[in-house]
């Protein structure tokens, strides 16, 4: 064999080896629901199949609270997660913002029918400036879900598995001032509206949304493992989130949209929140009382209240980011509640609602 025929064969073999090596070391991740790893085994058994059927991949943590059982009535469990595993709770954040509105009303800092423009004076004279704080809280202000001009970049960011909400507060206010109202009085779920509400409440209190949340909700509730991180770069080793089909997602911080979905929390902390909501000791718990005109159960500050014919009235909210999902449901009259956190962007309503309505065999 001559050098002329050997060299191409060697190069071909090396090329094939390189392709194989690179291909096999970049195997795509294939996440599956992890086994039960912490907390109550009976609770885990009760929900595992439902969680799997509803698309949970990788990690799930949940808490069930029954006030009738006294101090022992808080039970948690986890699949690949424990009470301290951090999840993005997404739009469950809105319930904190709704409660903050109630707190501000109780403190006399704002009135529900006060206009946004009277607080965020940059918006005075614009359509957004004329909406009331109350209508922002139940998505009837007429503001769109997100600023219209953000939609193209939002679509690209979601497609490329990135956080689509990167606007600063100044940019958020500038965009808000350019929005036209769409069908005011009708239910239009709005991250923009809830974000503006959170910043308006902070402005009135002379602070930032992050500090307002800390001082008026997280500290009183003892939620020491809950936080808002405004910049993705400030996150250290966050839990990886997955799309519903198993694509790894970059973390969402939401920047100025944090009041609509920026909280990161643990099931241990969220269990405290659920318990305090049920026993009425949570700051601004009256936010859950149905007292507004609204569609689809949007009759409270941020919370949805669903009346059912043959089942208890549920007070609830869910949340979702690129790689996480959350669901919190309460039967306030029955004193039962549940919250489920998952690092898959696939909703698990049957887990939370099933527990609240039926409990589980211990």
């Amino acid at each position, binding site marked *: 064999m001559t050098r002329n025929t050997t060299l191409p064969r060697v190069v071909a073999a090396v090329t094939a080896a390189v392709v194989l090596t690179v291909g096999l070391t970049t195997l795509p991740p294939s996440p599956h629901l992890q086994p039960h790893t912490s907390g109550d085994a009976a609770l885990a058994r009760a929900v595992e199949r439902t969680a799997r059927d509803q698309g949970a991949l990788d990690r799930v943590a949940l808490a069930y609270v029954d006030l009738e059982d006294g101090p022992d009535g808080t039970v948690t469990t986890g699949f690949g997660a424990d009470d301290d595993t951090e999840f993005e709770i997404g739009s469950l954040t809105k319930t904190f913002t709704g409660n903050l509105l109630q707190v501000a009303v109780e403190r006399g800092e704002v009135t529900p029918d006060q206009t946004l423009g009277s607080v965020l004076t940059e918006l005075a004279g614009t359509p957004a400036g004329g909406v009331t704080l109350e209508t922002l809280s139940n998505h009837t202000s007429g503001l769109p879900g997100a600023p219209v001009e953000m939609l193209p970049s939002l679509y690209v960011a979601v497609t490329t598995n990135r956080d689509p909400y990167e606007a600063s507060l100044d940019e958020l206010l500038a965009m808000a001032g350019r929005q036209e109202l769409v069908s005011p009085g009708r239910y239009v779920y709005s991250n923009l509206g809830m974000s503006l509400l959170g910043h308006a409440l902070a402005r009135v209190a002379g602070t930032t949304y992050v500090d307002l949340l800390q001082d008026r909700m997280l500290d009183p509730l003892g939620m020491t493992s809950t936080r808002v991180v405004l910049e993705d770069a400030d996150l250290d080793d966050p839990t990886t989130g997955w799309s519903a*089909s198993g694509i790894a997602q970059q973390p969402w911080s939401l920047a100025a949209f944090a009041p609509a979905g920026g909280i990161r929390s643990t099931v241990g902390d969220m269990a405290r929140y659920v318990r305090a909501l049920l026993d009425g000791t949570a700051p601004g718990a009256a936010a859950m009382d149905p007292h507004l005109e609204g569609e689809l159960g949007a009759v409270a500050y941020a919370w949805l209240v669903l009346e059912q014919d043959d089942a208890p009235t549920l007070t609830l909210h869910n949340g979702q980011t690129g790689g996480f999902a959350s669901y919190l449901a309460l039967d306030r009259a029955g004193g039962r509640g549940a919250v489920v956190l998952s690092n898959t962007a696939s909703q698990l309503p049957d887990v939370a609602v099933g527990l609240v309505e039926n409990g589980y065999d211990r």
Partner: protein
Amino acid sequence: MTATTSLTVALALVAFAALYAARAWGPERLRLKDRTGAVAESVGLLTLFVLSRTFVGWAGVSVLLWVAAVALAAVGAAGVVLRFAAMPAWRTRRRRWLRGARLVVAALVCGTVLALAASSY
């Protein structure tokens, strides 16, 4: 992306990798005819791998499909390397502008996919 879509893309990846291997080693009528085509199809297959890795969820799809595609691509790449020196740069001068236009469009598509993929990491 649904599980069905994910499976479809994964199967397409295997099919294109098999075609690539066949065009490197297969019968004359299937074979790559020139270096331009060899480079274009190699880049195209690489782009499909990147697209499948970045934008397709594999939670409901067997990663054995990925392994099969990688193996076929390795076989194909070896064949392309072996034949590369013997191939002309362009197989014909006929309708050269049409082929050029198709390559430009393909390059734009591949470039866009690779840029989007790079921005997602």
